[in-house]
């Protein structure tokens, strides 16, 4: 326990009232005078070329205001996503939009437009595309790798024999595109007393955020106002400006609330720019609301894996070597890059003495992929957990023990470069979870309970890097004594936009009631803040708020010294006053100091600001300069090494052998994210992450018909997002709460590992319930379990993906 005033304490985030009384405004809730409604025509074919668009039927249609086609927007080079395209590469790729005075007319019009599309070969399973003679998802090739050294298309084919061997579980011998390694792999396997080698599949699935990505835009004096559904705030601006073809200062993003993102709205996406172009063309505000089906199409999805893994363990359980080969299903836009992250997660979570990662990102004509909560880390977490169990069983070790033996700690070095970690306490997390879950007692319970049910216990570990640096902090103390905290981090629902500003309040020692948070609109003088993704906000934004507040305190002391005489160091703050350490009568209130700052000007009032801050921050400072004491700084605090967000989970299930369904009887999730900043928020993330893990483990997956490329699940119903009744009524969470040395408050992020540990615990528990049988696959649906229990074949080919 620490003695902070705000950090580690619950508070009521100001925006929550709007959420409970219906007044919170999401992108679609905004209206503008003269606004018209746009609807999109999205590709009906998985891959093709638009040869003709016949709009004659709507030329004189009442209520139709205009049409926007790919010719009206900048073209994009394949494989990148376009605002509108004439070369659709997936079913649902936006081709054109129609604006009308109401949505029904716009839809009627869409129904009348005739779009001729010449179809091209398509692939919905990477292995189909890799097969010699198989279809390429893009005319340019079937593989696209992005790397710092250069990105580009490749055409990689494996022989039929290579594919068959891979399907049979053998080490892939086909060409790959990326590779990294460390240590002596050969030696590692030589040293191993146990080698485990298995193929695996994790099927991608849609983000399905509650709010479909609506956007509305209009132009005023050359500035484009975009009301969007954004996961990040300031971080969106450069991308949005680029999409709109304007300077950064000519775009204003309003995103007060966002109905979920989970990685799908990190940066500006093409659909957010569509209304901007349409509005420019029509000279009036345009709102684009998309359907749930279209949100499925363009709302991003998790990258799927088809892989092979080989692990070596020493007698004592230590992992001596790890070798992993991952074919990534990167959709049509070559987005994701989950494979290498998965490899990184193995290196961090299990710390093999030697390791190799080989990756092959294959394009498919399925929905575009993107970061989804723990992209890569969570897929591999699900695959690794049953393998660790298998190793434990073979080596006659306790399943908890083998994880502790390999647990990441402060000494662990990770990734290809074998970088250090800022701090890591996985062993402590595992122990805390085991205690809370009562692992030792539960292990003694019999596996067979009331037939036909069997019990299964699982342990999962999750990891995602959880921090970033180099963003800006900005605060202002007004002459009325109020503390204005500027947060450009986005409002995704984690409340970190608010909880991280409490770092500034902590430094200023002020009352929370005296603080006012500014966020949600880029014209509200927000600083350049981190993206609200990658579990970074807590780490990155406590640092920016810290440095801005430290800057403010420094200025306050200097002003006090100017007023009262003496040196700045002679002064201290108490939350309301700046006072002389030894002569308490020499004291000014924050309000007086702020007033003085205005009078002194210069750096005090923000008239002069550091040169190294981002242009966005500079413009904000310019706007507020002279209205109080401005604290502004770029986060240049020392930072070295990988910042791990870690989590461990324990789960108990009862699996019904007659139906293949299982019920989660107990769930414990432990966060290892340094100091807890916002206990309730952390609890919410851990529990929400658990629900996501439960969805991934058993329910959610993409399904495409390979014959025509049609997706089977385009709505909530078929996507099978977990409901109240599919997850336990009560889940338990806690945190290790040991500070990280590289954050002023010891905090790290947690959002993503919160899910990884859950999906891993479940795959582990299912395997445990079935006497160690490992499906090597997510999701494990009830039909798969039933087929296994009855000794029937599974319905799908080995390593098939995007199927039922």
């Amino acid at each position, binding site marked *: 326990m620490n003695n902070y005033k705000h950090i580690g304490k619950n508070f009521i985030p100001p925006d929550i009232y709007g959420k409970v009384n219906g007044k919170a405004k999401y992108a679609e809730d905004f209206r503008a005078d003269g606004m018209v409604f746009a609807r999109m025509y999205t590709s009906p074919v998985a891959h093709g070329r638009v040869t003709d668009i016949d709009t004659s039927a709507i030329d004189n249609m009442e209520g139709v205001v205009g049409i926007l086609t790919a010719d009206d927007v900048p073209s994009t080079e394949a494989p990148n996503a376009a605002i509108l395209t004439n070369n659709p590469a997936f*079913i649902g790729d936006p081709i054109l939009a129609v604006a009308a005075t109401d949505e029904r007319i716009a*839809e*009627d019009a869409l129904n009348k437009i005739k779009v001729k599309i010449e179809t091209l070969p398509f692939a919905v399973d990477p292995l189909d595309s890799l097969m010699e003679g198989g279809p390429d998802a893009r005319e340019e090739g079937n593989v696209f790798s992005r790397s710092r050294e250069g990105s580009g298309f490749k055409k990689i084919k494996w022989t039929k024999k290579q594919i068959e061997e891979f399907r049979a579980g053998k080490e892939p011998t086909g060409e790959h595109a990326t590779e990294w390694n460390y240590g002596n792999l050969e030696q590692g396997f030589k040293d191993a007393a146990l080698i485990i080698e298995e193929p695996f599949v994790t099927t991608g699935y849609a983000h399905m955020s509650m709010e479909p990505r609506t956007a509305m835009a209009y132009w005023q004096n050359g500035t484009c106002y975009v009301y969007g559904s954004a996961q990040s705030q300031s971080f969106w601006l450069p991308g949005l400006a680029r999409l709109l073809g304007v300077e950064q200062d000519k775009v204003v993003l309003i995103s007060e609330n966002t109905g979920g993102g989970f990685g799908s709205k990190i940066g500006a996406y093409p659909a957010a720019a569509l209304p901007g172009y349409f509005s420019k063309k029509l000279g009036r505000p345009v709102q684009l609301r998309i*359907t749930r089906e279209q949100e499925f199409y363009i709302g991003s999805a998790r990258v799927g894996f088809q892989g092979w893994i080989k692990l070596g363990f020493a007698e004592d359980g230590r992992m001596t070597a790890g070798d992993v080969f991952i074919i990534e299903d990167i959709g049509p836009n070559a987005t994701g890059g989950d494979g290498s992250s998965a490899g990184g997660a193995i290196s961090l979570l299990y710390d093999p003495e030697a390791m190799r990662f080989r990756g092959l990102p294959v394009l498919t004509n399925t929905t575009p992929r993107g970061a989804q909560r723990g992209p890569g880390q969570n897929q591999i977490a699900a695959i690794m957990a049953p393998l660790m169990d298998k190793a434990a069983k073979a080596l006659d070790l306790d399943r908890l023990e083998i994880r502790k033996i390999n647990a990441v700690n402060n000494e662990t070095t990770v990734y290809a470069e074998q970088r250090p970690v800022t701090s890591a306490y996985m062993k402590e997390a595992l122990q805390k979870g085991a205690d809370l879950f009562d692992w030792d007692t539960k292990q003694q319970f019999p596996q067979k309970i009331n037939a036909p049910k069997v019990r299964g216990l699982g342990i999962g570990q999750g990891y995602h890097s959880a921090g970033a640096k180099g963003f800006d902090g900005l605060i202002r103390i007004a002459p009325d004594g109020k503390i204005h905290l500027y947060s450009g981090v986005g409002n995704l629902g984690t409340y970190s936009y608010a909880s991280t500003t409490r770092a500034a309040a902590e430094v200023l020692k002020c009352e929370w009631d005296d603080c006012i948070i500014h966020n949600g609109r880029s014209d509200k003088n927000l600083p350049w803040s981190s993206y609200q993704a990658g579990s970074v906000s807590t780490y990155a934004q406590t640092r920016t708020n810290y440095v801005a507040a430290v800057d403010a305190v420094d200025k306050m002391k200097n002003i006090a010294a100017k007023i009262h005489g003496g040196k700045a160091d002679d002064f201290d703050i108490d939350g309301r006053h700046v006072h002389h350490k030894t002569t308490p009568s020499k004291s000014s209130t924050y309000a007086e100091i702020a007033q003085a700052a205005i009078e002194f000007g210069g750096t005090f009032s923000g008239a002069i600001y550091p040169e190294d801050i981002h242009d966005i921050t500079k413009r904000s400072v310019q706007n507020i300069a002279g209205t109080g004491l401005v604290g502004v700084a770029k986060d240049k605090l020392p930072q070295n090494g990988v910042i791990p967000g870690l989590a461990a989970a324990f789960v108990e299930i009862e699996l019904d052998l007659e139906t293949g*369904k299982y019920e989660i009887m107990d769930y414990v999730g432990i966060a290892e994210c340094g100091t807890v900043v916002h206990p309730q928020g952390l609890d919410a993330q851990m529990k929400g992450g658990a629900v996501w893990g439960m969805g991934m483990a058993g329910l959610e997956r993409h399904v495409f018909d390979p014959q*025509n490329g049609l997706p089977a699940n385009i709505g909530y119903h078929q996507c099978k997002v977990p409901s109240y*009744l599919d997850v336990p009524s009560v889940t338990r969470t806690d945190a290790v709460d040991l500070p990280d040395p590289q954050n002023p408050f010891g905090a790290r992020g947690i959002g993503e590992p919160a899910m990884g540990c859950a999906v891993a615990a479940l795959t582990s528990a299912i395997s445990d319930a079935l006497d160690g049988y490992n499906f090597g696959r997510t999701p494990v649906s009830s039909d798969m379990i039933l087929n296994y229990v009855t000794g029937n074949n599974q319905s799908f080919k080995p390593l098939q993906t995007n199927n*039922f």
Partner: protein
Amino acid sequence: MPSYDVMPEVQLYQPTEVDDALNLAEKFRQQGWLLGGGQDTYGWLKDRAKNPTALIDLNDIEAFKGIKATSTGIEIGALTTLRDIIRNPLINDHFEILAKAAGRVASPQIRNVGTLGGNLIQDTRCWYYRRGLACYRAGGNLCYADSPEAMNREHALFNASRCVAVSPSDTATALVALNATMVIKNIDGDREMSAEDFFVGPDTHITQMTALEPGEILTGIKLSNEWSNARYYFEKIADRDVWDFALVSIALVIKEEANTVKDSRMVCGGVACTPYRLNKVEQYLKGNPLSEKIITNAAKIASQGAETLNYNHFKIPLMENLVKRALRS
């Protein structure tokens, strides 16, 4: 895909009298769409996959609602909501299996407005069909779900004929088990038929799920006392316990005498285009004690004749297991 979600232009009629409703139904025939709870209506219309010119909202007709005792059993108005059925004492006292089945339909909000009639005559959930493809069921010439690589996990094991879609209704299985009688009206009068005959398969009616003809309205469901208070079992297995349709469901009513089965009716949902009655199992059980051996044999008999597709063979053990569970209960 072109995607729509706004209600298209359609006329709305809200008759309050039975005759007006029947007249409207007759006048519009295929062009009219009878509206109960509407939960299987708006999606079709919003998708523009079905395009009626008129909605005939039956909810204002009191005669079509309510649950009342009759001399031979009870009669349920087709427009009675599932919510009312779940909470009704008469049903809970005598035909609890129906309340149980109704309670497993979709979600609370859908049960609050969804009607018994609507639940019975809802269209199949085959995802290919729902996408608006011109398949057999939509009047076309092929089945997308029964093709070499089709994704047909939810499709039929029995009695498929070109179309392999399954009956989605949870209450239908219960009502066939209870040997319910359907009351159907049109302007010429009434007709009644057994629930079993009411649901029709693709071999005879490939574009419809029930024997309801254009112009006709399902107005009521009669339950005779034949099976009232019989021992029953209902279970529905679905991926999610809210919203999702049955992968397989089972409804059983059974009468025993001196430790042997006197009579029973057993029906599976999700395995055929209609509620699939296990006639052979019923015959086999008659006069037999419910020993483990008999139960195991019954389960094997249940799945005889199943023809699997690419992804649905798991339904065979699932169905067999549900038969066993039902009989062991």
